[in-house]
């Protein structure tokens, strides 16, 4: 049995002249929760559709638990469940009927867990899908995926349309799945969600994987934000090794520092610093650093 839940090798997809995914090499070990980030059009959904066999790769291959996604999709799908942010369901069925259908199609349902999920997500299963709000339709697809206790959860914007309370419920469910040893591949724009849940993060830009690692690794490679306050003249920090993005606001100076902080600390101490704050970059800051503040690839 493969210890790798998900693997891609040189996976590429072109639509005419547009390269949607460019030689993606990715490996997700069993039991890991991986965040998959990138701006709109970076290739996240394309990756997921290739993994699910809904689209065919132009080059390369993808595997789920060692099963080729293109040649053995049915066997691969027995091991996974998929949640999309666009819940397209059958309007004339009720929530209960939809869950019954999708459970039967998958072949195995943890019935008590399904009941618990319906309660936790506060879903009225007697209602017809056409009468559900977007958030409630999203709950149906989430419950349908979680109730089969798959080895791999492939989630594409799974909390789209959910209120903050339901987002918390979702996070608990993913945490439980992780505790049970299930693998989660999470594509999301909600940075706090990814930061809270994921062991590792992969960042995609224009179809290419540009960063993959734990948050700690990424932070280590990224700048530390420092804010210092003085009761006399603010020193010039622009020449200090490793310091960048210096901003002076009256008696306060903000800057970013990469590598050793020792040269900066020496300068600040000699200049009579009265307050000193520093913080590691959040995932959002890391993400924006990759793409620029306007969200575009920089």
């Amino acid at each position, binding site marked *: 049995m493969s210890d790798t839940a998900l693997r891609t090798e040189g996976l590429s997809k072109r639509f005419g002249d547009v390269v949607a995914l460019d030689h993606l090499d990715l490996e997700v070990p069993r039991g890991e929760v991986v965040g998959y980030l990138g701006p709109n059009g970076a290739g996240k959904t394309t990756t997921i*559709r290739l993994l*699910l*066999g*809904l*689209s*065919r790769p132009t080059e390369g291959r993808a595997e789920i638990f060692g099963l080729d996604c293109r040649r053995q*999709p*049915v*066997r691969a*799908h*027995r091991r996974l*469940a*998929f949640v*999309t942010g*666009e819940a*397209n*369901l*059958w*309007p*004339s*069925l*009720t929530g*209960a*009927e939809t869950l*019954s*259908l*999708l459970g*039967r*199609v*998958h*072949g195995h349902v943890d019935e008590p867990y399904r009941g618990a999920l319906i309660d936790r997500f506060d879903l*009225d*299963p*007697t*209602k*017809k899908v*056409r*009468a559900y709000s977007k958030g409630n339709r999203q709950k149906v697809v989430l419950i349908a995926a979680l109730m089969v206790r798959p080895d791999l959860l492939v989630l594409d914007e799974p909390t789209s349309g959910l209120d903050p309370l339901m987002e918390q419920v979702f996070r608990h469910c993913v945490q439980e799945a992780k505790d049970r040893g299930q693998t989660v591949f999470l594509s999301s724009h909600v940075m706090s969600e990814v930061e809270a849940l994921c062991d590792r993060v992969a960042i995609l830009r224009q179809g290419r994987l540009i960063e993959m690692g734990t948050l700690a690794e990424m932070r280590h490679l990224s700048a530390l934000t420092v804010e210092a306050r003085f009761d006399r003249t603010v020193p010039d920090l622009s020449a200090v090794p490793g310091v960048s993005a210096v901003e002076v606001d009256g008696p306060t100076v903000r800057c970013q520092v990469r590598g050793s902080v020792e040269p900066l600390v020496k300068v600040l101490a000699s200049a009579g610093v009265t307050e000193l704050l520093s913080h590691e970059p959040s995932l959002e800051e890391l993400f924006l650093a990759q793409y620029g503040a306007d969200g575009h690839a920089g």
Partner: protein
Amino acid sequence: MQADLGIRARITAPVGARGSPAFLVAGLSTRRAVRSGILWGYIFGIAIASSEITYGRIYKTAAQRDALAATYGASKAMSALFGPAPRLQSVGGFTVFKISMTLMVLGAVWGLLTSTRLLRGEEGSGRWDLLLCGRTTQRRATAQVIVGLGTGLAALWAVTAVITVLSGRQASVGIGVGPSLYFSVATVATAAMFLAVGAVTSQLAATRRRAASWAAVFLGVSYGVRLVADAGVGLHGLIWASPLGWVEELRPIISPQPLALLPIAAFVAVLCALAVYLAGRRDAGASMVADRDHAEAHVALLYGPSGLVVRVQRAPIIGWWVAIGLSAFLYGLIAKSTGTTISGSVQEVLSKLGTTGTGADAALGVSFLVEAVLIGFFAAGQVTAARSEESDGTLDNFLARPVSRSGWLGGRMAVAVMALTLGGVGAGVSGWLGAASQHTGLPFTSLLLAGVNLVPPAIFILGIGVLTLGILPRATAVVVYGALVWSLLVVIVGGFGTVSHWALDTSVFHHMASAPSVPPDWVANGVMLGIGAAAALVGGLVFRRRDLRGA
């Protein structure tokens, strides 16, 4: 970079440059309705022109034309199917008789599908809410869509009229501009009425499918009432009880009765006003006929994709069965009386439609062509519904689970084949029941086989549809309905005149024997089934290997 600038320029262009924001909904609806109207206008115009131009070539002498008039003028079967035939000695009278009823029904189908798509369909998709956030109200937006539909109707009429006028100016045809324009009005009149019917059912029903089904039921009833009125059973007064009858009473070219436009115009005006009024009486997304938001779970059929098809499609399938069964029963009911009017000369002309013999079996032989068309549309509906599952994303729910593409498509088509077969058998049994009630003496097996005989052309259509679904998924509806309409027009034009055998061979209905007047041609049926199955197989293989594609 150039292309990028072009796109940005289009996006940022002030709305006022293309029209007031207050009329944006009308603009959007107009664009979609006009495109469709122009396409169908070409089909209508070409059908009329081909009929007008071929008349002089086929019926060259006065004696031939008198024989034609004597043949059809006295035939109750033909009158029931195509309407009365008062002046067949003229090209105009012949064309009106030959083509009007078919175009009337096609126009009605276009009207109800277009209006339910642009009204209830937009509302169901959620796009309607976006529009209502603009400078409009539900009532105004509905009125604007109706304006858009009216413009689409004008496009349908304009294209039909231009081709009809040009055809009429041919020396061999010789129909003036005025009569041609009036004929064009009569041709699109049912489209106008069923645009309005669709606008009302869009307010009443909660889903587009239901709105279209209710409008289709109204069309079926209208056709049935007209058929009885024209069947020569002493009930001609019923003609005024059917909107299709009003259009018939316009009597274009031969003896125009423009006064019959009054009920048509009143019908359209009242229904459009009613649609706008009802739109203001309900919430956006809701319907006038209450839809149950809650229901008990019934999961017996929900074991997989095929069971879901049966569950979701059972109402439309039963609707089709009822329409096919009722119409076949009706044809059986009038077969004896209409069959008595078929003389030897009629038989000669009917032979061009593939029918031989005289009496009730000959009448049913022609009538069952209509049944074949109905079952063909039923098949086309099944394959376009499969394509809709792919384009609206519901198919992803299955294919992201342990369901193979071939399993899904094969199951879906198996359900369609079963439904079509039962529809054909039902047509045969219903036709026999109608005929037996009038003591025609037609044997049960003869009509049962006539019903089974309707299935191969439908399977052929289904196969072509699956092939298109595999290769050109976005063209599925156009190809499958186009093939049907083409086949129908070719077989009608060919039946009443001379069409090259190359053209006739392209019509699937031309290859179907006119049972029960002649025995089913099992070799031809086998070929149709074989081609349909092969096309479906190739389509299925291509479908397995391609990307899923949205709308």
